[in-house]
């Protein structure tokens, strides 16, 4: 009877999910309610978790709860700490959830809601969750080794080195592009700039409190910090209303970029307890609060999704970024469906804290489903505003014009009605001078979130507060990724440099700290600067570059996972990792090729560089901007070279892995698996 009831319930969930997915896929004409998105996603996730993850756990990985995990064998109260599975789920989710699943879907909304939503849901279930889950399992079986170490042990030494270099390169591009998102959100906004600037002294205050007054009392310090941050969100309005103060905090894109570069350097070189860690605590609480509030807001308000399922920009002529759905929707969505960076977390802290192997399914697969849900919510928030407003906020001035009138004329001519008064009124309502040309996704997401929040609490009166709360939330945790990433990048550079000159590798030797911090900040700072001065808004070039690098890292992780599974003799079920790996290789290689060689000047780096060079040669560029144009040409060629190098590195790794696979399958070589030997758990069932 119980089994019959279970079958009935799961059939109902699957049927409801199919109806909801069918509704959002085939709906045409009038606006559709966001509830369908929530239902489709929730039902699909439930079915995927219940059946597909269980199948992977049982057949592919054969998880073994009788095997002691690294947390049990090495329990030291520091790195290896057996942790309750719900707490570890929260840890893991907080670590993997960054700005990517918010910004990516918002940008991909230019194709309409449908392609992005489908890839978010399906991609997560069959690719992203699989990667996180399998890499977590592999790392648990290897005492919590990192992806680079596993690549070296299981694929080849060269493979390990390539993976390490790929991580560093990806980190540099990632940090540059997310810093650009912050710059575009804060540009010419004294309220937002003041709020974010004030989080630095608040973090310093918390750092001193936690270091000298109440060591390690994170919860009480965070409560104080969150209260202060909420206060400065409100106080930002007073700053914006004061002409003298507003002038101080009204900064251009270049000025903001320089401040962020200086901040990154300080966060990397200063003691970690002073600035970086307390900011991270603040960010974690505000991130969790904002994500839950957004989910609650969408469920309560049930907004209408005004964006059509498919826009005219599926043909690749989109104003936010150029390129067709295939492959650009997939590399733009990135983290919400699959993120290579997650494999670093799944092979970092989490495997050292897990109590039982069986929990890897809930934590690895489950947390990624939740991240995908965040992506779906971001898509809903972006698509809940009128398409005209969405395009006005996210398109660069070189395409839609810099004034409300010009933007309204251009965007209306595309078939998305917009008046100049709508943009002026909206900017006024959210307390900004303008919302035009803010490519990057953060401001449009903030407008969407503010509209949802203000429909729940405060109405129009609180729209400006909610908007700046959303901007602060996005910018705060982007900067947290930025400072933590800069510091990790510094360690990687010190490790690489230490191989050439030993003292450089000493992480407490100040000259090495300063030099390596300057190198990593200089590298991502260069990408940030080129994005800020790019006439197409920077996002058009840099976000695809970030997406390609992130998805390439995911391909690396799946190559490593597939190699390990082949060595374990799981050939029958190898398609579980092989198919998403092949898909990622196809989309990233296609996107890389198009970004380098496409003759369309809005897509191809080289063709755009050649077009600009031809314009200089024919005298069509004014003398005053020739130097800027030449720098732009250099940057485009640099972007092409970076894309080519990244793609080449991954191809080398794949060739290395293919040689391994051939040797294993042809039985030319006995597979050597670098697992830690089996040790039976000493814990009773249920511990």
């Amino acid at each position, binding site marked *: 009877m119980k089994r019959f009831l279970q079958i009935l319930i799961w059939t109902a969930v699957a049927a409801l999910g199919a109806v909801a997915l069918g509704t959002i896929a085939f709906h045409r004409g009038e606006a559709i309610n966001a509830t369908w998105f929530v239902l489709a996603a929730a039902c699909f996730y439930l079915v995927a978790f219940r059946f597909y993850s269980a199948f992977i756990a049982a057949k592919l990985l054969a998880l073994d709860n009788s095997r002691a995990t690294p947390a049990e064998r090495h329990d030291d109260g520091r*790195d290896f700490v057996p942790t309750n599975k719900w707490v570890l789920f929260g840890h893991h989710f907080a670590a993997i959830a960054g700005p990517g699943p918010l910004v990516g879907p918002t940008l991909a909304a230019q194709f309409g809601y449908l392609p992005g939503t489908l890839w978010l849901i399906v991609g997560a279930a069959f690719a992203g969750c699989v990667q996180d889950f399998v890499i977590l399992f592999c790392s648990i079986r290897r005492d919590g080794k990192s992806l680079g170490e596993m690549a070296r042990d299981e694929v080849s030494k060269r493979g390990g080195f390539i993976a390490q270099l790929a991580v560093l390169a990806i980190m540099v591009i990632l940090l540059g592009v997310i810093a650009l998102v912050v710059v575009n959100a804060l540009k010419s906004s004294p309220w937002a700039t003041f709020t974010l600037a004030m989080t630095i002294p608040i973090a310093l205050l918390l750092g001193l409190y936690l270091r000298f007054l109440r060591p*390690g009392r994170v919860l009480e310090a965070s409560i104080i910090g969150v209260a202060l941050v909420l206060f400065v969100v409100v106080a930002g309005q007073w700053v914006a209303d004061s002409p003298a103060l507003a002038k101080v905090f009204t900064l251009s894109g270049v000025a903001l970029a320089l401040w962020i570069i200086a901040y990154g350097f300080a966060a990397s070189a200063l003691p970690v307890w002073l600035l970086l860690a307390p900011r991270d605590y603040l960010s974690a609480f505000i991130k969790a609060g904002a994500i839950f509030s957004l989910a609650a807001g969408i469920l309560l308000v049930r907004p209408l999704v005004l964006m059509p399922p498919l826009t005219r920009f599926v043909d690749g002529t989109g104003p936010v970024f150029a390129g067709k759905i295939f492959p650009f929707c997939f590399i733009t969505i990135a983290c919400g469906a699959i993120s290579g960076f997650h494999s670093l977390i799944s092979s970092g802290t989490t495997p050292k804290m897990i109590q039982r192997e069986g929990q890897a399914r809930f934590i690895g697969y489950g947390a990624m489903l939740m991240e995908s849900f965040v992506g779906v919510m971001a898509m809903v928030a972006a698509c809940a505003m009128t398409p005209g407003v969405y395009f006005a906020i996210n398109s660069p001035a070189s395409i839609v014009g810099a004034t409300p009138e010009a933007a309204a004329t251009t965007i209306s001519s595309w078939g998305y009605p917009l008046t100049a008064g709508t943009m002026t009124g909206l900017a006024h309502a959210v307390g900004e001078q303008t919302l035009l040309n803010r490519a990057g996704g953060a401001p449009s997401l903030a407008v969407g979130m503010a509209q949802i929040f203000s429909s729940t609490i405060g109405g129009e009166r609180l729209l400006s507060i909610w908007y700046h709360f959303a901007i602060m939330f996005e910018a705060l945790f982007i900067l947290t990724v930025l400072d933590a990433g800069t510091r990790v990048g510094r360690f990687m550079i010190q490790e690489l440099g230490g191989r050439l000159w030993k003292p450089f590798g000493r992480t407490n030797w100040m000259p090495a700290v300063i030099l390596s911090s300057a190198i990593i900040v200089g590298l991502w700072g260069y990408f940030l600067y080129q994005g800020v001065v790019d006439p197409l808004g920077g996002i058009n070039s840099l976000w695809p570059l970030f997406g390609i690098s*992130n998805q390439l890292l995911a391909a690396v992780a799946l190559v490593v996972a597939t190699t390990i599974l082949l060595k374990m003799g799981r050939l029958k079920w190898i398609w579980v990792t092989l198919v998403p790996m092949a898909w990622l290789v196809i989309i990233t290689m296609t996107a890389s090729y198009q970004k380098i060689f496409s003759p369309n000047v809005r897509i191809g780096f080289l063709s755009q560089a050649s077009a600009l060079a031809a314009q200089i040669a024919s005298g069509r560029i004014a003398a005053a901007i020739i130097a800027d144009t030449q720098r732009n040409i250099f940057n485009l060629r640099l972007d092409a070279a970076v894309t080519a190098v990244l793609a080449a590195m991954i191809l080398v790794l794949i060739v290395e892995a293919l040689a391994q696979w051939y040797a294993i399958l042809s039985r030319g070589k006995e597979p050597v698996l670098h697992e830690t030997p089996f040790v039976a758990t000493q814990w009773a069932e249920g511990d």
Partner: protein
Amino acid sequence: MRASISQFAYAVRTFWQGLRQWCGDSAYETYLACAQRQPAKKPMSPTEFYVEQLNRKYSRPNRCC
């Protein structure tokens, strides 16, 4: 009624403990409990542990994009 209250109190206590563990508030207590099982080593002070823990945590990827 009493059973419901004690169940509620248990749920609140569990949530509170989970929250403290999640944010790192109880990390020193966890470390101390572990260190007491190895009496040969002198345990670190709360400040030493806090700084050492942060230095380790932020030397590897711990925040994603």
